[in-house]
């Protein structure tokens, strides 16, 4: 059973966490010359179990839903703020980001159009060069 399928089994993750810690500690029985080493080993086991627990949570549907909702809210807030600022700037006859965006889009479209035409011209020039080269070669042969 997943540790974080949703609501209603809040005890499960805690149980799983402590059994993970205990399992890590049991796997390598506390040893070392001093209590410091033992504490370090315990700390390590605690972090490992905590890390695993966090990863389970971060993969859970509950977290994904929470992430989606909070991102949605943050983007809505930003959208509304931008709208408000744009309106305020327009009312005061000041250029807003929307205005600069529309100029950017126009420049970019123009740039793409010019590049496209240049590419096309470049291809045609190459073809013409090849034809001229062939014709020059043929006339040299004919002259001989």
């Amino acid at each position, binding site marked *: 059973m997943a540790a974080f399928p949703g609501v209603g089994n809040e005890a499960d993750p805690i149980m799983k966490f402590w059994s993970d810690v205990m399992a890590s500690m049991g796997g390598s029985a506390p040893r070392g010359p*001093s209590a410091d080493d033992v504490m370090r080993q315990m700390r390590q086991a605690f972090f490992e179990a905590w890390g695993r627990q966090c990863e389970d949570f971060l993969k859970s549907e509950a977290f994904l839903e929470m992430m989606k909702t909070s*991102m949605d809210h943050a983007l809505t807030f930003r959208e509304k703020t931008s709208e408000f600022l744009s309106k305020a700037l327009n009312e005061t006859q000041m250029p807003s980001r929307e205005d600069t965006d529309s100029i950017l889009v126009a420049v970019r479209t123009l740039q793409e159009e010019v590049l496209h035409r240049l590419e096309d011209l470049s291809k045609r020039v190459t073809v013409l060069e090849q034809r001229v080269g062939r014709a020059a070669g043929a006339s040299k042969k004919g002259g001989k």
Partner: protein
Amino acid sequence: MTTLPWMFTPADLQRQWDEFSRKLAAMPKAMEAAKNVRVGVTPSETVYRRDTLKLHRYLSDHPKLYDTPLLCVFALVNRPYILDLKPKKSVVAHFNDGGFDTYKIDWGVPSHAQRFLNMKDYIEGYLDDIVDHVRRRTGTDQINVLGYCMGGSMSAIYTALHPDKVKNLILMAAPVDWTSNEHLLARWTQPDVFDVDRLIDVCGNCPAEMLQGSFMLLKPISTMVEKYFTFYDNMENEKFLEDFFAMETWLNDNIPVAGEMFREFVKYCMQQNRLIKGELTVGDRTVDLGEIKCPVLNLTAEHDHLVPCGQSLPLEGVVGSSDYTSISFPAGHIGLAVGSKANRELWPKACEWLAERSDRLS
């Protein structure tokens, strides 16, 4: 009196107190180390600029031995100096000192006006221009390319589109197949969870803070808790402090990604997995990884939490090269570049691999 192993004796408590006092005394040294962080240590010159992009050429006292230059392509999400973080922790230094004329792309920070830059602009525009510039500058028809992370995917795409310009391709933790959605990043970027269109429509570029937050959340305990305990344990060690602050500088130096490029990469590569299926288009060209016919060295990190081996190794099945080598190294995503073991064992091997396949200067 019997004492259990985790019970502190008065002597233990005294030792703890002494240690704490020593750490406190080491604090000014730690602050000094934080202030004097030096990253990107190999001397270099900027040989090409376009918009925010810079191309660096590394200088070396060692003689150049090989005709074919090497171009390092890093991801768009972080600064590229991770490839040259510190002395003895530098991927570029291995190649530079090994006799290769080494170049590295610094994509720079995209401004709000650059959010329309897409995959075509980066790969067929910037990257192709740089490759042509290096070819012209060095008088060679082909160059070697090394791509790291997202830069590796971009390098693979570029090589597939321009196989005639790449002599050898080295990929480091480069994702090409996003079939599996078992790991965290893949779960978070699923289309029903992550609406990349809305993010880019609202924000323009993908914000650096969002990227940094996501990367930290991938390993929350080690990045937000455990790291500081390790710091406390080692704060009297000068070498540790230097490494720690160099890494921290890089980790906190995320940059935004140009909006359209991010949208296309997430949508077409991560969500729809078009690259490995041969369905990805860049401009009006379809990317066929089978067109990669040059020798390929695919380096993966066994403990990579960002790009698991399963995202890189399927390249072998689709690449058209008959000279394909893959090395899975016991390191993490960053450790592959800056780990002591990787710098001791992996990079000399990679350098040798490239040397065997490059033309020596006559």
